[in-house]
């Protein structure tokens, strides 16, 4: 047995280990990716507990472009913080600005103590309120239509 074939035999085990660890890493990444995907498309939530916020024309121009529609599954926190379900990165929006949730057939909205407040159809809200479809929610100068 030459030195080369000895090294080669040893390395054949090393190669197998490397390839399988590589595959495990990739599977883990794919798993994380699929989990992220299923967080946004949750089939366990009934259809009536799904709603959306649609940006409409507002006086202030958004600093960063908005999506055409923000979906809400069951409940959603809106704010500037990346941990929010709906992240809107505007200077007049607080870190955690408001929460929208579904309970017993009604949609509720509550301001989470934001600095600049929340108005619905032009009225500043002080406590939790029931949302109706087509209500216009204004936060930090941006308007959104609530759609179910």
């Amino acid at each position, binding site marked *: 047995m030459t030195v080369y074939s000895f090294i080669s*035999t040893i*390395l*054949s085990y090393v*190669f197998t280990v*490397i*390839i399988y660890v*590589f595959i495990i890493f990739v*599977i883990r990444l794919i798993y994380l990716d699929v989990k992220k995907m299923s967080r946004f498309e949750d089939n366990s939530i009934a259809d009536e507990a799904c709603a959306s916020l649609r940006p409409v024309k507002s006086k202030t121009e958004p600093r960063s472009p908005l999506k055409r529609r923000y979906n809400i599954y069951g409940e959603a926190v809106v704010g500037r913080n*990346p941990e929010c379900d709906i992240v809107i990165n505007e200077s007049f929006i607080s870190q955690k600005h408001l929460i929208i949730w579904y309970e017993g057939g009604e949609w509720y909205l509550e301001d989470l103590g934001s600095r600049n407040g929340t108005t619905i159809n032009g009225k500043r809200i002080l406590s939790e309120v029931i949302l109706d479809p087509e209500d216009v929610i204004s936060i930090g100068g941006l308007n959104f239509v609530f759609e179910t």
Partner: protein
Amino acid sequence: MGIDRLKSASYRKPAYLLILLNVLGFGLLFINKENNYNLNILYTGAAVLALFLVMYTALVLGRMGDKFIMLMVFMLISIGVLLLCRINLSYAFRQIIWILVGGAVFFIAYFVYYNVKVWSRLWYLYFIGGTLLFLITLVFGTTVYGSRNWISIGPISFQPSEITKILFIMCLACYTSGSWSKPLLGKIKPKWTALLITYVFVGFLVLQRDWGTILVMFSIYLFMIYVYEPDKRLLALNICALVIIGLLGWRFMYHIQVRIANWIDPWSDISNRGYQIAQSLFAISSGGYFGRGLGNGSPYYIPLVHSDFIFAAICEEMGVFGGVAVILLFFLIAFRCFKISIMASDPFDKAVSFGVTVMFALQTFIIIGGVIKMIPLTGITLPFVSYGGTSIVISFASMGIIQAISAKAERKGEPDERK
């Protein structure tokens, strides 16, 4: 910022492993005395690594869609080039040139597919293009191993049927996505036109005696109508037609009879017709679980070991575990491509990525199944692993298309989407 860093770190880990495998593998081949310490081995390895780093960085930083497919593809390419280097250095050298061309074609295919929006309306162009390629092959083609499917222009020779496969998939995607709804000549429904196109292409391939490609193309058609056609009678009809064509071929074609006979019993004519498959089985069995080690095996006994039978060489030198890893990588690639197909919003994109995925999966199944004597052997290449210029370039081009589709899905809803 913290989240970003974490994410990019986890993307780097598999890349490091890939680099480690390449360094160890090519280093090992370099110190092999049989190769006379040829520096070309190191250059080949460096070229693979450089292309990987460039493409992967471009993909991650440029946000060009899915990141995992490219990782797995380069794992397959590394394994393939390592084995080729070990089998025949000049093949490996030519292969690396084709891989570099493929890398360029990948980006071209990506940008062209991403930016052109009229793909779904050009079904007649795909048909005409495919037919022209077939006619050129029939007139100017050269016969290699019983199939008239090669064209040589100067030093370069290529297989037009590989390009036709992509054209065929795009043609079928026009039909299944519903963007081609006008009847031909005012009478023939697209359903029947698509059927006709399939049979015309298969007819040309019969004239070329390229059985492997017939199997791939016809199966792509069957999968497409299985998924898209609500009328299952069409599928049943086509399966019947396939069985009849198969039986007729078996009855009248000597070529096919030999293949079937070798599949059932390669041992009775081991010195002649069963030689290739028998040697392949010997090689696989001598590898054991972990293989004999790179450079320790004797793959030269298998004819065509560099292209169709490279899987046998992988099994011999990297073991059954190495072979299973290759199959697993193909599984994962197919899984990712199916996910991209599911996430795509445009029906044409969906159909194209589905077709390309089915093509990869079928090719892998047919050739690996043939090498391990599970199904009758038909000569096609193992995508990304086998030696073969056209195969590599076309595989890269179809990967570029898939990447473009996944990038579209990823950037959807972002207004800064490139126009």
